[in-house]
């Protein structure tokens, strides 16, 4: 009886192993992409890798080669249509995709084709529905995950976006945009080490892209590691001299270091590589900063700074302070109202508040209250602003630091030395260099004694 049992157990175990092996082999034998052309498949997979690594031009070339090798290769066409900027060509691809024999395709390919056609039709509801449905059925499919993660990002559903991008990276660790987004999400939550590793990994996977170096530079600026930030930004600009965001970050470093003389050479490079409008805007901001650093608050107005920074978003907190410091309360109020109106409009349009919009509004209000000497109220406004903003999304995280510094100044002015010290300590923990500049910032923060033309 025992021998029989043992024999049966062994037989069942062997049979189970055999079946498992067959299933395993069968599972890996399934074709992922529908093409009989090996060159097409190789070019396509190279294109996917390039797309994951965010090399759109290279990816397009690869997808085109794949289509040349196999014109019926629907998945390659889907990828190409997503990257194609030329409207007519896009439309031609869409037309072909609409006539594809869907029975030949895998389920993932059918999903991608359907998704493309929904985009063509600008049917966002269907796009979301398709993506959600596909991910429910295939929770580890990178293409489905990338769709729903991007949707969560657009929806500013940060925790879900972080979760989905994490899942995407677990499946495709080289999906660099997911890594970049995760880096910013970590940065926003104050997990700077995680953010740094995400950006570094991005830079490792795509070493000839400027974006990860710029992201790293941005992070290092926030953290006060200015030399490293400068190196990363210069590396980004070496790779792509027209990556203009990096010039802005270089200017920010110079500002934070109090070196206004560094602005000129940077702006010259901006002139050489960036669009004139952007260059003009950056010059405008540079002049404003320079005025601040040199405490010549009237200078920007003499140069009609209000005209070169027409919109409330471009004007920023420095413009607001400059207005208050020069007694232009009406201009400051106008900016505050414009910001509030803009946020309300966004809210009405999207049903959600834009990241940091509320904090911006609260911060401007708090600074205004400081200018009027309502220090306790200002501290409350600034504290509320601090609560509603993260280390990213508004002013690349530096806004939150500035708000904390302003809160410390407000608390100091309100007589709450301990609260001021605690707020300053929070800043020092993140960026000690910046915290050391408290006296200079306090000196440039409006107050009843620091107003007038």
């Amino acid at each position, binding site marked *: 009886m025992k*021998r029989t049992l*043992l024999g049966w157990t062994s037989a069942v175990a062997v049979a189970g192993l055999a079946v498992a092996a067959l299933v395993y082999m069968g599972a890996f034998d399934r074709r992922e992409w529908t093409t009989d052309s090996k060159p097409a498949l190789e070019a396509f997979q190279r294109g996917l890798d390039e797309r994951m*690594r965010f090399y759109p031009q290279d990816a397009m070339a690869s997808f085109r080669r794949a289509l040349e090798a196999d014109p019926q290769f629907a998945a390659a066409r889907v990828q190409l249509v997503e990257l194609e900027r030329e409207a007519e060509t896009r439309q031609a691809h869409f037309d072909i995709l609409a006539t594809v024999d869907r029975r030949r395709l895998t389920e993932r390919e059918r999903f991608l084709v359907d998704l493309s056609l929904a985009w063509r039709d600008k049917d966002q509801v269907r796009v979301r529905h398709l993506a959600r449905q596909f991910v429910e059925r295939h929770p580890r499919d990178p293409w489905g995950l990338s769709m729903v993660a991007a949707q969560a990002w657009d929806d500013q559903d940060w925790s879900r976006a972080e979760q989905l991008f994490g899942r995407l*990276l*677990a*499946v495709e*660790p*080289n999906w660099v945009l997911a890594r970049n987004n995760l880096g910013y999400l970590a940065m926003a939550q104050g997990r700077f*080490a995680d953010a*740094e*590793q995400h950006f*570094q*990994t991005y830079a*490792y*996977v*795509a*070493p000839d892209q400027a974006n990860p170096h710029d992201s790293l530079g941005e992070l290092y600026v926030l953290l006060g590691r200015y030399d490293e930030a400068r190196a990363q930004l210069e590396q980004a600009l070496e790779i792509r001299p027209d990556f203009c965001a990096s010039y802005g970050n270089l200017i920010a470093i110079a500002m934070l270091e109090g070196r206004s003389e560094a602005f000129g050479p940077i702006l010259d490079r901006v002139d050489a590589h960036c669009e004139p409008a952007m260059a003009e805007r950056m010059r405008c901001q540079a002049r404003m900063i320079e005025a601040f650093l040199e405490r010549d608050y009237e200078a920007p107005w003499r140069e009609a700074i209000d005209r070169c920074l027409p919109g409330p978003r471009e004007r920023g907190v420095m413009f607001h302070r400059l207005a208050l410091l020069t007694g232009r309360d009406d201009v400051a109020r106008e900016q505050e109202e414009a910001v509030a109106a803009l946020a309300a409009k966004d809210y009405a349009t999207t049903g959600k508040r834009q990241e940091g919009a509320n904090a911006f509004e609260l911060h401007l209000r708090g600074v205004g209250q400081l200018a009027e000497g309502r220090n306790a109220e200002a501290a409350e406004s600034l504290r509320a602003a601090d609560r509603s903003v993260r280390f990213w999304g508004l002013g690349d995280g530096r806004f939150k630091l500035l708000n904390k510094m302003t809160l410390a100044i407000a608390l100091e002015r309100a007589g709450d030395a301990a609260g001021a010290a605690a707020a300053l300590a929070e800043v020092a923990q993140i960026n000690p260099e910046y915290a050391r500049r408290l006296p200079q910032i306090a000196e440039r923060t409006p107050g009843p004694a620091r107003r007038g033309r």
Partner: protein
Amino acid sequence: MSRSRLKLLLSLVGAVAFVLAASSLIDIIVPRPFDGVVLEADAPGRLVVREVLGGSGAERAGIRPGDQIVGIDRSVLDSGSHAARLLAARRIGDSVAYLVRRDGRLTEVTVELGRRFVGSASYFFACLLGFAFFGVGLFVRRRQPDQRAAQIFFLLCSLFMIFLVCRLRPASYQWLDAFVLEAGALALMLLPATFLHFFLVFPRPLPLRPTGAEPDYAKRRRRWLAVLGTVYLVPILLPIAVRWTGAPGGESPRLISGAPAASWWLLGLYFVLGLAALGANARRLGDERQRRGVGLLQAGSLFGLAPFLVIAVARPNWLLTDPHAFLALAPLTLVPLTFAVAIVRFGLLDIQVLVRRSLVYTAVSIALTVSYAVALGLFNAFAIGSKLALSPWFPIFFALAVLLLFEPLRLRSQEMVDRFALGDRRRLQEAVRELGRATSAQVDLEPVVRDLVERLPRLLGLHFAALYLDAGGELRREAGPAALPAKLPPVPELRDALAARGSLAPLAELPGLAGASAAADLVAPLAEAGVEWLTDLTSPRRRIGLVLLSKPAGQLALGEEELALLDSLFDQAAMALETHFLLGERARQAELERELEIASTVQAELLPRALRFGEGWRVAAVCRPARHVGGDFFAELPARQNGARAIVFGDVAGKSVAGALRMMAAHEALQSLALTHRDPEQLFELANRRLYLPGAKRSFVALAYLAALPDGDGIEYLVAGQPQLLVRGRGGAVRALPLPAHRLPVGALLEGRHVLSQARLEPGELILGYSDGVIEAQSPAGEFFGDQRLARALAEAEGSPDGVVAGVLAAIEEFTRGAEPYDDITLVALARDAEVAT
């Protein structure tokens, strides 16, 4: 599970273990791009560096133990196999970007890919040691396939091999790395169970109920199955349970060399239990030698395993680097070695192979490891970056060269290590040889018996030995325990089978050797008495007897060399016994020869010194027995005429003593009858009646009677079974006298009457009577002397009867050339004087 299935399963386990270990090693040797990173096996899901091989690209790039490999070749890794794929796409010599996490920070480094090599010296040592242990285990099992301890020892050796070769493998990114590492971890978990199992059955199975004998064997078997099932299942289930339930706090359980810490504590517990079981076993042993063996085993286990447990359990981090692992490995080698030696002390294994090979393998392994390390170091110093270093064939040829060096080095080291390490066993073997020499010098039975039955069991630690001697076809116990049968029945098939085998045979194999039915009667009582081995004592001349050997006091199993020594010893004993028997026979022969000499003298004295035949006749006669005594004779009897004499010569059937006795009887019968009956026909009739023995074979006497005729010119004669009488004429011509119609020997048949014949002889003629021994004398070529040669010799002989007798004898001697006579020879020559005739 039946015994045969268990054996099959064990063979399967051994084969799988060997294939796994060998493929693991071969996989390392196969040339492929390699960075020099050895991964930490106990960091599932992460590629953590355990070791960076010296001279490798990783070392030059600054990668250090503890680093985590995050990316290779601009790709973030999701698994080891992913890394393997990326490296496989590159070539040896390529520079590849690595992303490494160290202390929480990421660093990018460039690694130049080299070729893969076996790794550190300690791993090379571990491999050689692992395969050496497997070889020893395999040898033991093949030699003792039925011994339970040998089977467990084989399992233990297989597990050791997997642990040493697979678990300590410098694991890289291949899937095979993970697979063999897991196998090594499983082996490591099973090792303590096997360890404990071994101690439970060695040197004797521990009685699970210590109060005494367990009569219910089925119950006892069930109890053993339960204990062993628990012993083996717990180490397997424990890590599964730990992983399943998770560590407190929800973190993954800490792994040490692939097993959770709990498994290591279990190993420690098994270790203690094993030593306790061994201690309990030792208390049951009565023999000092066995207790010494157990002591050695305990010491080896303690000094071998304890450092390993301390290093591996108490300070598991020490195992992260190979040099420290080596610290744990070095004493660990004591365990199988002491096991082997201890088992040998119980006769389970062959000491020569086990100890000698183990020690030599270890020594050679160390020597080769050192030379390997030195060669690699030199190679790295001078050849790195060269074409040779990049060649995929280099590691293969290098490994082959090392392997080729192994056996010659081992052979060279063998004798030296023998002298150093095998003193005890050599002394035992020398004692057996000395016993053989002493035995061979004996000529008396008693010392030989004492050597075989008393000294030999003491030397080998046997319960007993017994000697049976051949006595008229049956075997009688000469010495040995009374529990053995006093006599053994003759089994010719057994005798032939043992003679054909020519060496000690296990009793259990007898039915196979001699046929089940023939051996059944013999085997059963011997097996019951505890006999395990037997051999035939045979000399070239005869079968002498049988030697039986019991099991030893422990789990005896004689090794190959002991068996060879014992075979030699028993050959020497057989020769000694043969010498003893020959000397006895020689003494008896000498006595017999003396007696025959006397008999010969007595017989010779019966023959008349001088023959008288009558006036005008000359006579000569000679009788030469073929042996000391013979069956021929001649005698002088009174003839019919008063005062005349007749001559009778006879040849009784048979030779030597039997012939002589019959000759005496015939002689006396004729002499006594002739006293009262002078008529030859009547004399022969009476003699016939006297000598006729109904039913007796060959009890007759060939006789011839010769007497002179009353006128003196001829003879009357009677021939009964003797050859025809020959007459030589005066011219030298030879003729035969006619034979009577009834000429049967006297005593052959009761019926029939011998009739007297007459023959006239001319003066000068000579008549020759002779026995059949004359014409049947043989040359060395086997040719008979025959009638023709006799006639020629007679014709050519000198004229007188003495001359004729001498001439014929000379012719016979010349013909036989001194060969031993086939039969007695009698010649009687009568010559009629020529003067008388004139």
